[in-house]
């Protein structure tokens, strides 16, 4: 690694790795390590500082991390481990062409890169149902993400990430906003970014930004925590003069409920909730989703053993290094969910939805009590039926 040692040194410095105490709290909390994988964040931190010549270990370990951020949550010394992983991956991918083992042979990353085509003309809006109101131009946009693609690609396991989009739009409509939905929206680039392909990530960011600006958009609302993270934090890094407001759908709904005076209709049910890492730990959205669930009368939220900022990862990130250990994490998470005796496992993230939907079909779970996986926006939309124009109707009891 000597040829790039200065850059590695810089990454080490910028992410406080020198502050590491070797206490091992990170490894003791890392779900990847606890699942039995030969991987340790503490060891990676130590090796890159003290034995950078151990390239074999470093260059393989860097792809193992789920970037879930639990280690950072526990680290007493302020080591910024997740960003460290991100930057090291980008460097190793750019300089050495390294990449993690791609789940699904890299099909998802392929379509994401295809979307960098300058002449791209997609047919991606066929999922819009007649009741959903959208526009071509306006100040507020709804960013859909790759949901149409995921639902086809993963149709074999009954994935329905488009529910996040349809019900997200439904909620916006009912709260009085008919947002721009662009036919030429491209992938936000999250998975390319986090697997080290920063060039194509930047290309997607620029193209998306231009398209939304051209449509007169000033604010982007998205239901997906990954798209949210990307738009809020990473697009401004690569798009000069970035000036769009970025809003999480759940925040939008919470505000909208307060200002409109609308109410969710009651539902007697017992639910549990999968905190997405990119919301709970990385965007401090622990309470928001819970406040929203709390607005549904009759709904009881039963927390899993690990929840909020301590929530356990859904098992995979950015579709690399999905293996038996990922599955083990997922099965453990499902066990936690089942132990709450909830009827519904709600999630706010399309990716958590995909990974948990996969785990729910695992033969190891045969004979176990069922738990229904449901997007949080879908539950909210179902409880907020449309009233006549301008009349909150039955809802405003």
């Amino acid at each position, binding site marked *: 690694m000597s040829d790039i040692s200065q850059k590695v040194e810089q990454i080490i410095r910028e992410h406080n790795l020198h502050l590491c105490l070797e206490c091992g709290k990170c490894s003791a909390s890392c779900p990847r390590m606890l699942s039995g994988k030969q991987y340790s964040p503490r060891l990676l931190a130590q090796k890159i500082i003290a034995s950078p010549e151990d390239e074999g270990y470093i260059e393989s370990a860097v792809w193992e991390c789920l970037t879930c951020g639990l280690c950072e949550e526990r680290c007493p010394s302020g080591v910024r481990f997740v960003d460290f992983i991100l930057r090291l991956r980008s460097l190793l*991918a*750019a300089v050495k*062409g390294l*990449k993690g083992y791609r789940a*699904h*042979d*890299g*099909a998802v*990353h*392929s*379509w994401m*890169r*295809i*979307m*960098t*085509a*300058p*002449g*791209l*003309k*997609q*047919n*991606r809006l066929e999922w819009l149902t007649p009741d959903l109101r959208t526009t071509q131009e306006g100040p507020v946009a709804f960013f859909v993400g790759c949901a*149409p*693609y995921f639902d*086809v*690609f993963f*149709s*074999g396991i009954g994935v329905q990430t488009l529910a996040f989009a349809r019900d997200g739009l439904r909620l916006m409509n009912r709260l009085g906003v008919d947002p721009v939905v662009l036919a030429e929206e491209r992938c936000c680039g999250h998975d390319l970014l986090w697997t080290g*392909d920063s*060039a*194509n990530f930047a*290309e997607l960011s620029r193209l998306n930004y231009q398209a939304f600006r051209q449509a007169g958009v000033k604010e982007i609302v998205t239901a997906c925590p990954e798209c949210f993270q990307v738009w809020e934090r990473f697009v401004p890094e690569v798009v000069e003069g970035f000036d769009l407001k970025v809003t999480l759908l759940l925040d939008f709904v919470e505000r909208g409920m307060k200002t409109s005076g609308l109410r969710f209709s009651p539902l007697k049910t017992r639910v549990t909730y999968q905190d997405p890492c990119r919301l709970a730990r990385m965007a401090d959205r622990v309470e928001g989703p819970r406040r929203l669930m709390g607005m549904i009368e009759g709904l009881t939220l039963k927390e899993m053993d690990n929840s909020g900022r301590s929530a356990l990862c859904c098992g995979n990130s950015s579709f690399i290094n999905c293996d038996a250990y990922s599955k083990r994490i997922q099965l453990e998470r499902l066990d936690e969910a089942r132990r709450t005796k909830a009827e519904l496992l709600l999630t706010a993230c399309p990716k958590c939805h995909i990974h948990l939907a996969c785990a729910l079909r695992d033969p190891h779970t045969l004979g176990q009590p069922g738990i229904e996986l449901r997007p949080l926006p879908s539950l909210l939309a179902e409880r907020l039926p449309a009233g006549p124009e301008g009349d909150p109707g039955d809802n405003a009891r």
Partner: protein
Amino acid sequence: MTPVSILGIACNWSPYACYHAAGRAELALPANFRLMRVMCMGRINQALILKAFEHGADGVILLECVDADCRYGPGPEVGHTNVDRVRRLLRFLGIGQERLVERAFAADGRDELVHAVWDFTRAIEDMGPNPAKPGSAREAS
């Protein structure tokens, strides 16, 4: 005419036998046609096809055995399911479903295979290059 590039993905058994026979008989195939051999059409997943387009193919022709001739049992079922799904993705991407075709051959289908490849190549040449070709910043490696 703008040059186009065509990728064939051939099952190792009947279609590859046809291709081999065409080579022995010195039957010409289009200069812009390249062949990739897999053991069975069941090995053709969504990634292989998407990757072909990601790396610049303008058309992909899947050269398969007749279903009943498959040596592995579930090959055709798996393959056809994958192809159906990827077709829908190609439509979303604006690449268009007509840039991906499936053709099946018996082991003695040498001439049919040569015809199929020429026909497909001409059709793609008429359509022109794939509009959804990624920009220059393709993945390193």
